[in-house]
């Protein structure tokens, strides 16, 4: 079981993300050797010019997708936390899709089985390609640490100036 210092995921920064979808292209290129956002495991959402974020699997501690599968087709990797799909068992019913609060597990348009982020064996293609450096392959404790430091810096920006 990875510790919280080891369990990495793809984190998107809404302050940097511009919704350009390069991540989607990079993902389908890596996994499917083609360009097709509907086959991407990460999806960019542009609500408007100012609100953009790319979303992929959050690697939940108690993943509702796994719990929702009545066919035991999904399990969470103990090593990395990614969702592993047994394609022989998955029949594309989509209960896991409904259970996921983030829209991060999807039905593959061709295989009709579900799929989600597999972290590219530790070298996520989307992170590598993101032109805005809006994606980070990181752990949740580092994300919170960064936010904390940012908040403190902001609070004490006057005294930091000196």
């Amino acid at each position: 079981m990875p510790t919280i210092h080891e369990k990495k995921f793809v984190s998107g920064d809404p302050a940097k993300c511009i919704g350009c979808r390069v991540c989607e292209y990079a993902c389908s290129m890596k996994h499917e050797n083609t360009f097709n956002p509907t086959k991407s495991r990460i999806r960019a959402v542009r609500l408007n010019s100012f609100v953009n974020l790319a979303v992929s699997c959050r690697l939940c501690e108690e993943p509702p997708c796994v719990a929702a599968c009545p066919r035991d087709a999904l399990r969470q990797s103990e090593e990395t936390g990614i969702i592993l799909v047994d394609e022989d068992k998955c029949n594309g019913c989509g209960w896991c899709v409904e259970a996921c609060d983030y829209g991060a597990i999807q039905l593959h348009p061709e295989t009709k089985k579900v799929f989600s982020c597999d972290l590219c064996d530790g070298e996520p293609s989307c992170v590598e390609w993101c032109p805005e450096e809006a994606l980070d392959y990181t752990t949740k404790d580092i994300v919170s640490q960064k936010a904390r430091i940012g908040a403190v810096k902001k609070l004490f920006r006057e005294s930091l100036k000196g």
Partner: protein
Amino acid sequence: MSYAKRILYVDLTTGKTEVKPLDMKLAKEYIGGIGLGMKLWLDHSKAGVDPFSPENPLIYITGPLTGTMAPSAGNTYAVVSKSPLTGIIGEAKAHGFFGSEVKRAGYDVIIFTGKSDKLVYAWIDDDSVQLLDAEHLRGKSPAETDETIREELGDFYIRVSAIGEAGEKLSRIACIINDEYRAIGRGGMGAVMGSKNLKAVAVRGTNDVNVANMDEFKEFVRTIHERMKGPATRKYRTLGTPENVLVLNALAALATRNFTNATFEGAEKVSGESLNEHYVKKIIGCATCGMRCDHIAVVPEGEYKGSTSRVEFECLWSCGPLCGIDRLDAIIEAIRLADYYGLDGISIGVVVAMAMDCYENGVITDKDTDGLKLNFGNHEALVEAIKRIGTRTGWFGETFAEGTKRAAEIIGGEAYKYANHIKGMELPGYDLRTLQTAALGFSVSFRGACHLRSGAYSPDVKGSVDRFKIEKGRGKLVMDGEDLYNVVDSLILCKFSRGVMYDGLKDMAKYYELATGIPMTAEELLLAGERINNLARVINIREGGGTREEDQLPWKILNFPVPEECVGKGVYVKQREFDIGLSDYYEVRGWTDEGIPTPKKLKELGLEDLIPIVDKKIKAMKKK
């Protein structure tokens, strides 16, 4: 292979659709985008067709790289049709997200013909094509139309390209807009769409787009991404094109008050520096692109509080200095309104500036404007004028919705002196009196006044020529720029990213070859660029234009020397020099001195089938 190899035909009269294979020989010869689009337009139209006739095909076309991860070229489309503004070939390109969806739906090209008997939108869902009722969308802006369609079809990722009220009401300066801020801007393509009762094109594509050589393509894209972080795109990523305001002002090339002055006393206030400091809230970008250039500006306070638009130099200039307006908040609102009604952001400012000039000179009066005080610098009048033009309200709105050339004809008298257009197309933001290579380049452009057909302002701005005169040698500069830009616009690379092609056409050929698998060299591309320019010229000849007679400059550029104290004081284009420039250009092009491509030249370019058109014209001119 990144071509879909398919053309979708949609007959709006009967509702029938058909898919035919794309002729791959044509694809290589004309690349895609405007080149292939114009070729297909020629092949699918009759000579002299009225732009608003159901017989005028409206062609949506992607590029060979569209749908791939290629930065800037991956996301794009062009629209080609006969322009109601110029009466000759019309073409415009837009980036954003829409184009890739068309390719993924499985089409390189969509050809709309006919006319629907009621307002409809086309819903293209991969292989399924339907015309759906759009009556409830009448009068809605392109952005509102986009949102409504995605909501009613129930898919957030559907992409929409739509017209606004101006297009529905056949304003000849109406544009088509996709993805909120991206416009098929110039030449009134929105009005052609309106004439077909086609409100929008909505697309969802789920197919793969493949490239011929994925490994090398990927590495090339990686290189482009790296270059996009470098000096070639610095301007677009930082201040953006509004950087031009102060640059051109210093050169006495910032056309002001309808090309009366060449410098603007309010330049600092409407500069890119000021815009970025006070108004730009976020810089975003298009699909697949490694740079970002969309400067989204929001007015933080005052009477235009909350007004939001994407600001580029051209529209900032046309709604700002050209109208004598030094308030960025009003300019942001003006651009927002242009997008709202679906008006070409360049033309609308030039049209209002003409109205202001006419008003100040007593050519039109309060009676004509229903009391609107159209003095230069009156920002409230600018905003109201755009609303009237966008909705065709009153005599004023009706008249100026026709563009400067027709407005001058309607008004009569001296009005022509204030109409700043070439071939009917409103001038973009470069004072041609002090940028005279540009004057030549804009005048011979096949779609009318245009900075993007040759980039001929570049040698002037860089200082590599004497920009206050035209002399022999400029023709070659213009031609080289044109042929290159024809390739760029057929691959549909974003012009902001042209600088990342460090090896120019060689890089472009490599890009093309890796994606399509079709062998291509820089020389072949250059030849294609020349072929495309000749094709466009012959189309224009077939439609009754395309000769020296049409390659002319506006009255002010030729007759009104820059009046104020500045480096350009007293400068204007001398007709005699300009004529020399035209002859020089025709000569390097291998055309007659009347500007007609010779049969020999056409043969050289594999355009033998067009020879009857030029033969006919040459004979007719001899008779005259």
